[in-house]
């Protein structure tokens, strides 16, 4: 590698990493946390077959799973100002990513709830617990254990998808790389470099997933 390229790499690395720390990671963490709240709430409502709310959840999931993430970003950031709702780039990205991710994860959690044996709820009732107590203490923890690998996959996918937020002017890692490239014009090196940083983040999350699965898996370990 010649000296100029090496200089570009060394010079650009912190300029890519810092937006990673200030935008990519916060966007992922905040949006995914909100997505989990939405997903669990939507899954529980559907599991309990709350009449109107179940219909509303189906509609929400249908819309957000059925349209491209990029289109959703554009509608919220460029479209909504037309009806008087103007959001800054970062909050707009948070809204879209949480709603989008929430729709997918709601399905994951709902399926995991349905997979808990029916006898678990009945055993809770017979131990004197109410529906809500049994859901909170018995059913939901088991469902989250089942859903964990799949939710981890969604999280890893989402880290990479946050690069789409560059399209609504959020200065996250990919947009930072683009901006540097506009000056020095080294697309191969810079885009590989930013790709490697995403790879690093995904690898860290995959490792965390393994740690989490081992902890949560305690009750499924067989003797011997």
């Amino acid at each position, binding site marked *: 590698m010649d000296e100029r390229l090496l200089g570009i790499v060394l010079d650009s690395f912190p300029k890519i990493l810092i937006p990673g720390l200030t935008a990519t990671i916060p966007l992922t963490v905040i949006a995914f946390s909100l997505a989990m709240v939405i997903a669990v709430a939507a899954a529980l409502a559907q599991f309990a077959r709350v009449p109107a709310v179940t219909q509303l959840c189906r509609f929400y999931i249908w819309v957000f799973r059925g349209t491209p993430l990029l289109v959703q970003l554009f509608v919220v950031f460029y479209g909504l100002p037309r009806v008087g709702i103007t959001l800054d780039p970062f909050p707009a990205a948070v809204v879209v990513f949480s709603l989008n991710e929430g729709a997918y994860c709601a399905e994951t959690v709902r399926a995991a709830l349905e997979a808990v044996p029916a006898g*678990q709820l009945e055993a809770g009732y*017979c131990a004197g617990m109410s529906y809500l107590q049994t859901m909170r203490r*018995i059913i939901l923890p088991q469902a989250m254990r089942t859903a964990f690998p799949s939710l981890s996959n969604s999280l890893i996918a989402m880290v990479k998808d946050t690069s789409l937020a560059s399209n609504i002017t959020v200065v996250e890692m990919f947009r930072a790389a683009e901006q540097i490239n506009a000056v020095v014009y080294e697309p191969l090196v810079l885009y590989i470099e930013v790709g490697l940083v995403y790879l690093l983040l995904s690898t860290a999350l995959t490792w965390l997933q393994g740690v989490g699965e081992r902890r949560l898996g305690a009750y*499924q370990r067989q003797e011997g």
Partner: protein
Amino acid sequence: MLEVKGIRKSFGALEVLKGVDLTVNRGDVAVILGPSGSGKTTLLRCVNFLETADGGTLAFDGEEFRLGHVPRRDVLRLRRKTAFVFQSYNLFLNKTALENVTEGLIVARKMPKAQAVELGRRALDRVGMSGRMDHYPSQLSGGQQQRVAIARAMAADPEIIYFDEPTSALDPELTGEVLAVMRRLAEDGVTMLVVTHELGFARTVSNQVVFMEDGAVVEAGPTREVFERPREARTRAFLQPGGQSE
């Protein structure tokens, strides 16, 4: 203590309980016998409100309820006076043996944790499971799981324990340990209503027998009478060796 009258239940067009009467007094060990499909499980489930009966009345401790119209508050309250042991154990899969026993005490009955743990240890000790308190259900044999389930049932000191074929899912060599635990409960004066195919257990442990067929009670009475002088031909046939396999 428990008096059920005229309980009816249908699943769609299938009438499963056709007006069943049942009385259990304090200290009784009552056994429900009958061929499979006769509605025994449904009867127990209706009595504990896991199914909603279509009609009939239920009196518990002198309080009377119209089945099918029991308010949720009363259902919760009545369930806290009873316990249920399932054919398939239904231990909480995400809880250890000890936590399975303490869960209902702490969460449903608001008992302080230390006291619940103390009761839980004692209950597991009584079923011979004190060496496995920190094991998860997946780490226990069927017989051990069912003994934990019985500990869970008795820990709350219920007024009655319902058993639905507690040994039917077990390998023959494991039924003995569970029946022994139930025998000991009976000796301690625990009120029990047991659906079972174990005629030996019924004969030696129970004091009341109800024989059901096709959603109705064919014959009911003290165990000695029913076993030694069954009035109905159908009961006689069922109690004969090999009579249940049909």
